[in-house]
């Protein structure tokens, strides 16, 4: 016997009915590695953390993030970084500046060429990390030190993320048109549904008639 459903497509799957052997537990990494996505809501604003995606590589992560995080709301750009490549400071209390609590080691010898790092700040717990800027450094530690000097003064900073610029996949300027939403998709907006007119009309037509 196969499973009968109200949905003919499910019936056509010919799924076994009744007791079935338990599914093998999903193997490790069946759902791939995680990547973190940052979006830009409006031209000229800072890239802000939107959330993770699971993907087999950076390019697929970009596509998934685009679907997941830019589908419903305005977006003008997206950055993707492998979770593994992001280093973070401990979380401080709200209103603290976490830079003040970090012990920096003696400056490392600049044996290597400095390279760019992207710095993200979390201003309040529960909010999202936002891009503070880019620094040149030879290590994550040094990047953090640079970041403290360049943008560590302003206001409370609860947590800092540091990632090498080369490890961030950034959407390209010339691909900007991929973010434009076509107007025919208005059916996804609450504002497209004007129910009140129908309800008022219905009530008008179905008023209880008062006795003459």
């Amino acid at each position, binding site marked *: 016997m196969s*499973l009968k*459903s*109200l*949905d003919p497509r*499910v019936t056509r*799957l010919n*799924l*076994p*009915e009744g007791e*079935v052997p*338990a*599914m093998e*537990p*999903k*193997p*490790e*990494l*069946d*759902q*791939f*590695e*995680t990547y*973190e996505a940052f979006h830009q809501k409006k031209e000229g604003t800072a890239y802000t*953390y*939107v*959330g*993770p*995606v*699971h993907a*087999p*590589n950076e390019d*697929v992560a970009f596509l998934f993030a685009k*679907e*997941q995080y830019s*589908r*419903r*709301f305005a977006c003008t750009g997206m950055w993707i970084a*492998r*979770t593994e490549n992001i280093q*973070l400071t*401990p*979380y401080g*209390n*709200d209103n603290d500046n976490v830079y003040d609590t970090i012990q920096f080691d003696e400056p490392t010898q600049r044996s290597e060429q400095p390279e760019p790092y992207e710095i993200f700040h979390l201003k309040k*717990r*529960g909010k*999202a990390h936002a891009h503070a800027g880019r620094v040149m450094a030879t290590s994550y530690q040094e990047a953090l030190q640079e970041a403290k000097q360049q943008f560590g003064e302003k206001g409370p900073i609860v947590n800092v993320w540091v990632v090498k610029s080369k490890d961030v996949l950034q959407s390209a300027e010339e691909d900007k048109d991929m973010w434009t939403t076509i107007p025919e998709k208005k*059916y*996804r*907006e*609450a*504002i*497209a*549904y004007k*129910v009140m007119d*129908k*309800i008022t009309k*219905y*009530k008008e037509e*179905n008023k209880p008639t008062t006795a003459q």
Partner: protein
Amino acid sequence: MYGGGNVFEATKFDDVQTEDPAKLAEFEARIARGEKIEPTDWMPELYRKQLIRMIEQHAHSEIIGALPEGTWITRAPGFRRKMAQMAKVQDEVGHAQLLYSAAETLGKSREQMLTDLISGKSKYSNVFNYPAFTWADSNIISWLIDAGAIVNQMANAKGSYGPYSRALERICAEEAFHLKYGHDAVVHMATGTPKQREMIQAALNRWWPPIMTFFGPSDKMSTHTETLMRWKVKMASNDECRQQFLDMYVPKIWELGLTVPDPKLKKNMETGQWEFTEPDWDEFKRVINGDGPCNAERLAVRRTAEERGAWVRRALLNPKAKYVRPLA
């Protein structure tokens, strides 16, 4: 969309006495100050366990909840409704992704959560174990189940766990469309031909009993529940959510000239509380434990999708991949 009805059972980790008192005091002080907890913070085992359980159930409810509505995409009347129904189902699956990630930051892998869903070890909202017989059933789900979900999610968004709050904020923003879309669909039927009215009333009659169980049975007020409320894991009691839902939606049902199939349903003006026939909690328990009209189908469909897609995931897997928990 979400299944509420979290039953906060006592767990073996119930005993917070075993936690480090200094760390526990710091943790509680943070929540009392209104600060959020972030993934790398110290947290009591009970907090972690209950949040994983709650967020995971929420995520499962999103993907399983997409099934009864997804069924109706091909049969939705008209192109515009097909597009909207598709967009809604896509949103629900997206919500599952957000929620699985939030649960993952607490230490349970997505593989494990999906395995537990299919084995029946983890639950999802019980209402999705009932069938959507007609297009009108799908409309009632879109409107009233989503409405219930929003009541729940708005409360939980104010909870103390940062990643869950962030996910819920996004989810609530997307749900605004679902609610309006569902309401519009119901209004269309209710103000349409006599046949359409009859269909929507029949669907409402079928769905009302499951809807009344949506928020779960009354909470047993135990020390356990009090602790979870103090830690802002549980933000409102099941009864409070149910009352709020009735306050907001019963008038909207009545204004369409539809009836609610419960002769006892009325608002007691003195207490300000809705009175209603007590839902059949025996049936609720029986169905949540597997014996409902659609349990087998829902899990079989989910399992088939997992199994038939496995080779694609294996083919794509980077052999050097290394698992790291998402950051936030």
